[in-house]
Each structure stands twice: as structure tokens, then as C-alpha cells.
């Protein structure tokens, strides 16, 4: 799950070249299938048409992408901050953990697709979409941060106590740095999931809503049988997901590269 390709030499070239070769082959095959069978765009648009649609509709699509990404980012940020705060609270008080943890699990295991329609009844659409992005991103950060906070080296805790450290010093100087690798694992998962949550909620809102996010564009295009635009919107969503993944992996690498085994490349 680390940023690939830090090693130099043929290994690195292969790791970049092989996926590109696969991409070219795949797109070519797609193009040929559409051409040979003379498929109409309503059934399957060719890659060229999808690209043209992407360029032609770029203003509309990029606007929608911006809306979805903003919701994703807000949900992700609220979830991360909230989950870390709750994990700290769990760590401070076992009673709070016993009381609330089961509900955090329930929130996690209930499919967000099933929650979204209910949220849409009680919240304004934008709020409901945000809530969905928040719900799916919350648990991975909570679970991993809790694990990290509970895995602190007991000898280090003793050492801090020996030198009369305050609870605040133990939390900020010991527990949080020590939990950082776990926390970042949760955050990396949460980034991708909050995009999923936002998309799911937008789709659930569907044409009934007045939304303008990218998933809403997909639903709308489906109604209008504008299949090339569906593909173009889907393409943008994938790119957004990949960018989020690499951005968070990069953040994780930057924060851990000096000290954590997961971020260190070893020479064979």
C-alpha cells in the first residue's frame, strides 16, 4: 500500500511501463470491438467518443467534479477529526468506549446505500450527501486510531510516568505519535471511502434531487441515454479516487519515511 516505484533501475521502469502497456492494449481492444461490431453509442461508445464528450462537456463535468470532491473532502475531514477525537476519548475512558463502540460498529456494518434514502428524508440533500461521506469514512479512522493508541510501548509509558509526565504530555508526546502509523492507515482507507459515500448518496438522491455532483450527472445521463457522458463522468470519478489514494499515500510516506518500517526501503 506504499507509493510504488521508489527503487530505481529496471524494476521501476517495469512498474510504470507495464500498466501503461495494459492500458494501451485495453483501450485498443475497446476501440476495435466498437468499430468491428459497429456498436451504437447508446450501447457502447468508443474511447474516442468518450474522450470527445469529456472535452466537450468539460465545463459541466468539472463543475460537478468540484461539487463531489468538495463533499468528499468535507466528509473526510469531519470524519477524520471526529474519529481521532472519539478514539482519544475512548483511550481516556474505558466506559465511553464500552458505551459507544458497538454503535460505531453498527454504523459501519450497515450498508450506506441503505441509510442514504433515510438521510435524504430528514436532511437537505447536500447535508445527506455529506453525512454519507462522513459515515463511511469515520469507522476506519476510529478503529485504526484506537488500535494505535492502545498499542503504545508500555515501557515508554512507564518512562514518561517516571519523569512525572502529565496526561497531556503522555497523549501528545507519546500516544499520538506512536499511533500515527495506524492512524494514517485509517485515513488512507477513509479517503477513498468518503468518495464512495458521496457518490452513493448522490445516486440515491438521483434525479429527484437538485444536486449537481458527478454521480448525479451519471444518474441524469442515464435517464437521457447519454451513455458517453456516463463514461466520461465515471472516468473522472476514477481519476479522483486514484488522486486521493496517491495523495494520502504520499502524505503517509512523508510523515513516516524517517522512522517507520512501512515507509523504509531496504537494500537487499
Amino acid at each position, binding site marked *: 500500500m506504499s507509493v510504488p516505484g521508489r527503487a530505481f533501475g529496471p524494476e521501476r521502469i517495469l512498474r510504470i511501463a507495464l500498466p501503461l502497456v495494459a492500458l494501451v492494449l485495453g483501450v485498443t481492444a475497446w476501440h476495435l470491438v466498437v468499430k468491428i461490431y459497429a456498436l451504437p453509442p447508446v450501447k457502447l461508445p468508443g474511447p474516442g467518443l468518450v474522450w470527445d464528450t469529456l472535452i466537450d462537456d468539460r465545463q459541466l463535468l468539472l463543475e460537478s467534479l468540484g461539487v463531489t470532491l468538495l463533499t468528499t473532502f468535507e466528509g473526510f475531514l469531519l470524519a477524520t477529526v471526529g474519529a481521532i477525537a472519539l478514539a482519544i476519548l475512548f483511550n481516556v475512558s474505558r466506559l465511553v468506549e464500552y458505551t459507544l463502540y458497538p454503535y460505531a460498529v453498527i454504523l459501519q456494518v450497515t450498508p450506506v446505500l441503505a441509510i442514504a434514502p433515510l438521510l435524504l428524508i430528514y436532511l437537505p440533500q447536500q447535508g445527506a450527501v455529506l453525512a454519507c461521506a462522513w459515515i463511511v469514512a469515520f469507522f476506519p479512522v476510529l478503529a485504526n486510531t484506537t488500535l494505535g493508541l492502545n498499542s503504545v*510501548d508500555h*515501557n*515508554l509509558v*512507564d*518512562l*514518561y*510516568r*517516571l*519523569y*512525572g*509526565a502529565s496526561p497531556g*504530555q503522555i497523549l501528545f*508526546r*507519546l500516544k499520538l*505519535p*506512536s499511533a*500515527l502509523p495506524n492512524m494514517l492507515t485509517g485515513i488512507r482507507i477513509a479517503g477513498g471511502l468518503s468518495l464512495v459515500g458521496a457518490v452513493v448518496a448522490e445516486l440515491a438522491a438521483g434525479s429527484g434531487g437538485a444536486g449537481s455532483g458527478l454521480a448525479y450527472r451519471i444518474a441524469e445521463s442515464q435517464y437521457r441515454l447519454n451513455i458517453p457522458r456516463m463514461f466520461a463522468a465515471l472516468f473522472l470519478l476514477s481519476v479522483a479516487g486514484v488522486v486521493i489514494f496517491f495523495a494520502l499515500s504520499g502524505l503517509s510516506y512523508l510523515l513516516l519515511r*524517517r*522512522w*517507520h*518500517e512501512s515507509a*523504509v526501503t531496504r537494500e537487499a
Partner: protein
Amino acid sequence: MALPGFSVSLRPPASVALRDVAKTFANGVQALDGLDLDVRPGEFVSLLGPSGCGKSTALRLIAGLSEPSRGSIAWGAGGASAGPRGRDIGFVFQEPTLMPWTTVARNVALPLTLHHVSAEVAAPRVGAAIERVGLTAFRDAYPRELSGGMKMRVSIARALVTDPSLLLMDEPFAALDEITRFKLNNDLLELWRTLRKTVVFVTHSVFESVYLSSRIVVMTPRPGRVFKEVTIDAPYPRQESFRTSAEYAGYCRLASEALTHAMAVAA
């Protein structure tokens, strides 16, 4: 150097004194029972015993990391600053116990940082502590970049940075290879002599305890208490030649026999 009119007792006040100390854990395990121990200023005392004889528990009690179930512990000699929460105790764990996310210098500075010592005051003390263990070139390295022996040196530098009068060491070299261990034994003795610390050293190695200590306290297992004390009268500084001397072999036999008896008593 007794002052006129000032009566000097033959035995100076203890650095730490344990009286009839017992420790029973919540799970019912009785780690210590009736432990009496006096550690005098400037001594190098080893607690020697098999695994599970409560040596480490005794050390944690002395450090104030744990409370005795019965009996008393008195810290003295250091005056008002002595005591479990004071700055007068340094502790070295079996593992280096370093914070992996920060540098050697910041790890060594930790005790001062926790006491809100300003950076200007802390910097020279941290530098001196790192120099004492010979790691000046590595002050900005991260723990994972160091060998096991070097990590242990960092741990020792951290324990020394507050200049404590009492240094507690819990099998600090048990996980190291023999060559590194011998080297660190020598370096530790040198630090102890030049800095005039009092050391309580937990080990299960007869050879290590004889080489280092001015006195060995042999403990019985379950529950732990003092079985026998062996005073090692060999003069300091001790060097590698001591390891191969007949005197050393004799003390090792003595300590080894005491250990065997202690275990027989418990069995």
C-alpha cells in the same frame, strides 16, 4: 573527610532502603515477600536470580512505578530531590525503549523536555550525555538506523541526562551479543566510576554480575526475597584481564553456588 565535631557513622545513609517489602499482583502471583535491601551511595549492586524471582518487580518498586503490597521503601541520601517522582532516578529498560519517531538527541532530551527545561539549558546537557556514550556523530540519527548496542547507549545517555544519583538497570544488555555486551559492561563501569553514581543492576548472568558489581544480592524465586549477599572485593577499575583472572573465576563459583542453592530452596 569527616568534619570536626561531626559524628560519622560507619555506614552512610542508604540511597534506597526496602523493608519487609511484599508485592502480590492482581492475578494472585506473589512476586516478592519479605524483601529487605539497602543500597548505599556509590555502590554497584546487582540483583541476581532466575527468571521470575521478582528482580524486575523490585526495581520497578524502587523506581516508584509500582506500589508495594506491604512494607516500606525509603529513598534517602539525595535529600529532598530523592524519591520516586523526583529527578534523582534514571531507569534503563531491558529494551532500549526509544521513541522511533524522533532523533537520538530528542530521545535523550526527553526527561528534560518533560520537565519543561528550556532548550538553551537542555542542549549542552543532552550533548554531554550523548558524548559520554560516544554517539555524538549519531545525534540526528533515528533509532532504526542504529545497531542494538548503539540503541542501548542512547537509552543509557537518556537515563544520565538528568544526572540522577541512582541508576536502575533492568537486564539492559541481555538482548545483546557477547562482544557488544562486554564492551558496554566496560563503558558502564567507566561511567559509574567517573560520575560516581549508585547503580542497581538486575541480571540473570552470574558472569556479568561478578564483573560489574561491588555487591551481588542473590534472590530466591516465588516469592522473591534475598537469599544471600556476595561482596566482590576485587578493586576497580576492572578491565578485560579481570574476566580471565582466578579471582574472577572464584567469585563466579561463589555466586553460582549461591544461585543454585537459592533455586533449590524454592524448588
